[in-house]
C-alpha cells in the first residue's frame, strides 16, 4: 500500500497491524542439534506450550513461515542450505538464534568445521543464550520479539532502512 511505503500510516493502523503480526507468527523450527530438542519441548510439548503466545509451530514449508528459530550448531557445510531457506521466507521475517552454538559457535568455537554464529550468514533479531536454553528461555525470547514487533516502524522495514528499536 502506498501508505506503508511513504510512512504516512496513521498510528492506530500501525499499531493494529503490528499487534496482528506479533500474535500470528508462524514459526519455522530449524532444529539442527541439541537445542532442537528443547525447541521441540517448547513447541510441541504440552507443558511449555508456545501456542498460548499466538505462535504456531510446524508450517508446511519456509515459504509460509514468518519466524525461523535456528537452534543448534551451524557447520560450514550447512550454510548454503540455511541461506537458501532464509531467502525462501517471505518478508516480513524474523530470526531467532537459539543456543550458544548458533549465537557464537558455542563450545565448538575452535572447531574447523563450525561457523561461529549464524549471524555471519543471516541477520538475527533475537539471541537466546544457553546450552541448551530452557524452553522457558525460548518462550521469553519469543515474547521479547513480540514486544519488538509491536514497536516496529513498518515503513523502515519496507524501505530497507536499518531497524531502530526504541
Amino acid at each position, binding site marked *: 500500500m502506498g501508505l506503508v511505503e511513504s510512512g504516512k500510516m496513521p498510528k492506530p493502523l500501525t499499531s493494529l497491524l503490528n499487534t496482528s503480526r506479533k500474535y500470528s507468527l508462524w514459526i519455522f523450527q530449524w532444529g539442527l542439534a541439541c537445542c532442537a530438542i528443547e525447541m521441540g519441548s517448547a513447541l510441541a510439548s504440552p507443558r511449555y506450550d508456545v501456542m498460548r503466545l499466538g505462535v504456531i509451530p510446524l508450517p508446511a514449508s519456509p515459504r509460509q513461515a514468518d519466524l525461523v528459530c535456528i537452534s543448534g550448531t551451524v557447520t*560450514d*557445510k550447512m550454510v548454503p542450505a540455511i541461506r537458501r531457506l532464509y531467502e525462501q521466507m517471505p518478508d516480513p521475517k524474523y530470526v531467532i538464534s537459539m543456543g550458544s552454538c548458533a549465537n557464537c*559457535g558455542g563450545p565448538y*568455537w*575452535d*572447531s*574447523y*568445521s563450525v561457523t*561461529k554464529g549464524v549471524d555471519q550468514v543471516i541477520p538475527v533479531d533475537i539471541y537466546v543464550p544457553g546450552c541448551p536454553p530452557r524452553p522457558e528461555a525460548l518462550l521469553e525470547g519469543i515474547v521479547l520479539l513480540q514486544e519488538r514487533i509491536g514497536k516496529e516502524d513498518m515503513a523502515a522495514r519496507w524501505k530497507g532502512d536499518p531497524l531502530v528499536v526504541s
Partner: protein
Amino acid sequence: MSSADTTDTTTATATDEAREEIVAILTEELGEAVVGTHIHPGDDLWVRVTRDTWREAGIVARERLGFRAFEFLSAIDWLPSPFGKNEDSPTDAPPEPKTEIVTGYAGGDTRFQVFARVHSHSRKLGLTLKVDIPDDDLSIVTWLPVYAGVNWHEREVLEMFGITFVGHPYLLNLYLPGEFEGHPLRKDFPLLARHVKPWPGIVDVEPMPSDDGAAESEDVAE
C-alpha cells in the same frame, strides 16, 4: 622412534589364556607378520601386523577366530602436536615442543598407524589390530571384503588423515565440504580459532566434594 619388535606380555600375576590363545592362533596363521602384541590380562589385547598382511589379518580374525562384529577402523597420528596443548598460562613462556614420535601399545615405527577393533560375541573378547603406515606411501589395502561396515570408516580416515585405501570403490569426503583443504586430524593441522584468540589457560578448578565437607550435609538421599 620406538623399537620395531615389541612382544610385551605384562608381568601381572594373572595370565590370560583366552587372549594368549588368540595371539597363538594369529601367529600360527600369519607367522612373521605379527610384529607386536600387548596383553592386559583380563582386560584387552593389542596386535600389530605388517602392512602387506593387513587384509589377511582381518580375514583370520573374522573366519578363524570368530571376531564377526566390527567396531571401528581409524588412525592415529603419533606426532606430538607442534602447537602444544594450550594448557599453559598465556603469560608464561611456551614450553619446548616435543618432536619425538613415541608410539603406544604393541609398538610402531611410523608416524601414522591405522588401527581397527573387532569383537567376538562368542568369546566375549575384543581385539585391536594395528598396522604401520609409512610416511612416503600413505596407503593400505581396504578391508571392505572382510567387513562390509568398514566403508564409511575408511572414507573418514581418508579425509581426516590423508591415508588412501586401495580397492575402495569410491573414496570421497564423508564429513567435510568438497573445497576443504587439509587433513584435520593430523597433528600439524592448526585450529585457527585458537591462534586468533588464544585460550586463557586453566582458570577454574572446581573444588572436590570431599574437601568442602559437603558429603556430610543433611540433604542427602539415603
